[in-house]
């Protein structure tokens, strides 16, 4: 039992905006009253619901490949030396599993959604998530380039496609469905890409990216998944791609969808030399369509590594940078590319990317529909979120940072004209309440009675980046996990999965295809529920 007293509470889901209020915790939940137990005096501090990351890459084969590719990054960062209550590891752009959990919790984040999991490597992903302590986890399974599904869409068998998708979601022990560059990753296997939404995907006659997007969004809605289709649009990163993004949003009319890392999809211009921000156009359309949510995918300057299932884009990035490149092929399901990258202030393209991420966060009016992410580790490592919070809350700091850009860059962005400043309450929305709602986790992201007792307590300070980087206390599931800058207890998190309804006979359809086209035995394919540490099956 625990009582937090004297703190200013920011709980936007329950319309509590900085009132001083006691928060009582018992058995891992928020309750109305407790007697006895510990009391935390939070006078002079602010109390937030624990952060929720709607889109991050923290586990799985691709991330591990990235870890292996950047030993120089591991050397740059100080190691985490094993202590009494925590294990050792390394931080940097791709922290090791245990350190990932410690770093998220150490920043007040208590739930993360691993955004891209191929079914074939889902077992690996769950094994790593199991070793990611403290935070609760969910993951999205990659389906938009799955050849069994694409073949069904080609044949017009949407009903069967729904059953197959539902089976696949359960096989991967996923929580949601991710679509990455729909059709483009399948085309990449022939060295091609899918750039036009209405052009057939190479290798197919009828299947177009638009058709895949519409079909998957409908399948997700029909199955009643708590989280809508999680979509990485076509033409990521390409100058002029805002048109594709607008077209994609039109395709999604009448359906729910979450547009991932929108920053990478809001560029104008014809090539790298004329690339400019089109965040206003994208934000205007987005503002008018409440069926959509998005996350920023913001960029911060510095070293990182880019990881995505979008193989063709990564090949292009490799050609641009001339640096290391990793490419993975995941049989009939998807692919993956990895390129270490440095975002530089004086680079025009990088400056536009940096600005667009912030512009979208500032131009999208409703904080309940745009969430704080860096598409970790693509835009920057997740442990740099406090820097973005400072940029959002302090227009003067933002102007200081703008001075570091090349003067030419200022003409291509809108950021200098934007003077909106986020309030603490809005920060609580974009870091916790909003993403929890988008993920359909009703017991997360707020501090109402019955909610999970995931609480972050920060100093109420003028130094925004510092106060959010070093919470005074972090409580996860009712246990104090971080206190005085130290890990007090590395609790185990839960793994959220959904079990959508499907016809059991669908296995008879998948099995022969599988035996014909896959390298692995069908019986070894689905992930056993026992692989998850504390599975929590959500209804749908």
């Amino acid at each position, binding site marked *: 039992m625990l009582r937090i007293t004297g703190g200013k509470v920011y709980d936007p889901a329950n319309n509590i905006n900085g009132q001083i209020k006691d928060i009582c915790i018992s058995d891992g939940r928020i309750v109305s009253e407790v007697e006895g137990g510990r009391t935390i005096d939070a006078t002079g501090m602010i109390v937030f619901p624990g952060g929720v990351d709607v889109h991050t890459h923290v586990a799985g084969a691709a991330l591990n490949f990235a870890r292996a*590719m*950047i*030993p120089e*990054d591991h*050397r740059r960062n100080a190691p985490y030396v094993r202590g009494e209550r925590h294990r050792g590891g390394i931080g940097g752009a791709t922290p090791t599993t245990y350190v990932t959990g410690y770093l998220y919790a150490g920043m007040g984040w208590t739930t993360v959604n691993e955004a891209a999991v191929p079914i074939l490597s889902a077992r690996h992903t769950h094994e790593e998530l199991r070793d990611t302590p403290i935070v609760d986890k969910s993951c999205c399974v990659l389906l938009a380039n799955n050849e069994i599904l694409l073949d069904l869409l080609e044949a017009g068998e949407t009903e069967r496609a729904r059953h197959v998708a539902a089976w696949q979601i359960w096989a991967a022990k996923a929580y949601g469905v991710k679509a990455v560059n729909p059709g483009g990753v399948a085309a990449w296997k022939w060295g091609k890409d899918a750039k036009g939404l209405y052009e057939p995907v190479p290798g197919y006659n009828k299947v177009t990216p638009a058709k895949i997007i519409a079909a998957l969004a409908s399948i997700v809605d029909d199955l009643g998944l708590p989280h809508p289709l999680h979509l990485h649009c076509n033409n990521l990163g390409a100058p002029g791609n805002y048109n594709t993004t607008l077209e994609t949003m039109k395709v999604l009319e009448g359906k729910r969808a979450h547009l991932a890392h929108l920053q990478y999809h809001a560029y104008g211009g014809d090539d790298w030399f004329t690339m400019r921000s089109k965040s206003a156009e994208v934000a205007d359309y987005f503002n008018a369509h409440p069926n959509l949510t998005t996350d920023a995918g913001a960029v911060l300057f510095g070293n990182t590594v880019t990881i995505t299932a979008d193989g063709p884009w990564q090949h292009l990035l490799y050609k641009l940078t001339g*640096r*290391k490149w990793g490419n993975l092929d995941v049989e009939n399901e998807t692919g993956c590319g990895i390129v270490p990258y440095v975002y530089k202030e004086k680079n025009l393209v990088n400056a536009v990317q940096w600005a667009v991420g912030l512009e979208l966060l500032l131009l999208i009016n409703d904080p309940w529909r745009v969430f704080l992410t860096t598409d970790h580790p693509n835009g920057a490592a997740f442990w740099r979120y406090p820097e973005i919070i400072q940029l959002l809350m302090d227009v003067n700091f933002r102007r200081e940072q703008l001075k570091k850009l090349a003067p030419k860059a200022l003409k291509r962005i809108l950021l200098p004209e934007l003077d909106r400043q986020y309030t603490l309450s809005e920060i609580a929305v974009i870091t916790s309440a909003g993403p929890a709602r988008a993920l359909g986790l009703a017991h997360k992201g707020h501090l109402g009675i019955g909610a999970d007792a995931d609480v972050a307590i920060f100093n109420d300070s003028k130094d925004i980046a510092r106060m959010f980087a070093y919470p005074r206390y972090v409580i996860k599931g009712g246990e104090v996990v971080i206190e005085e800058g130290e890990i007090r207890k590395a609790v185990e998190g839960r793994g959220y999965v959904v079990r959508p309804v499907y016809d059991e006979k669908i296995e008879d359809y998948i099995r022969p295809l599988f035996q014909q086209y896959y390298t692995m035995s069908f019986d070894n394919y689905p992930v056993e529920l026992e692989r998850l540490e504390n599975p929590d099956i959500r209804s749908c």
Partner: protein
Amino acid sequence: MTTLTLKESPTVPLEAETLAPDVIAPLRHDAIAALPVFLGKRQRRLDDFFTIEGDGSDELEVRGDLGRVKWIGRGMTRGKITIVGNAGMHLGAYMKGGTIEVRGNASDWVGAEMTGGLIHVHGDAGGQIGAAYRGSLSGMNGGIILVEGSAGIEIGMRMRRGIIAVKGPVRDFAGLQMKGGTLFLLGGAELRTGAWMIRGTIVCLKPIALLPTFSYACTYDPVFLRLYGRRLEELGFSIPYQPDAGGYRRYSGDAAVPGKGEILVWKPQVA
């Protein structure tokens, strides 16, 4: 002068990056004795392994067979370390300035990713001298490494600036993925010298086997080698640079990358 004498060679490698003038110079004898070193994964005191004489100074003399003592002079910026005996791996890695002299043999990764200073090995050295550590974009970015004896594989791997000169023979892949700087191979080299080199100069005084992706350009007498030659003479290394002694055959490559590097092979004047 601070003198440190190794009591006995450790059974597992000892990581002693505290053996650098930057660390030791400001300290009194007691504080030097208490400096941390790592024996395997265990932290120990410097005086568990060394007999220390004198207070801290910019001049260190380290005595004994230090073949298992790693990271001596790591990141040092000033002063001088004289090693009377052999030195272990990563000697002078990340070094920025100062001098290291080894009166014995050195191991692998001498001067890896160094940016300045001088390392002079009187005996043989191992592989990856002045190289980039795994994953890094570039290795040595300045400074000079001199080896009187032989050296191992991948010397100057991904080096960007600076000079490496080896009197004895070197093994395979000298100047692998080299990006700049100059490699003097006074005693010749084994296979695949300059593989994937993008820029930079490899000067070889003995005939060597070249990769097919290096093509002959011309035979000439580069002016810059006279400057290098005079500097190297001061350091006790001599390369022929008198025009009447002969010329250098220039091979450009590596065309596999494609690169703009060069290998200059000495061709004495036939009388």
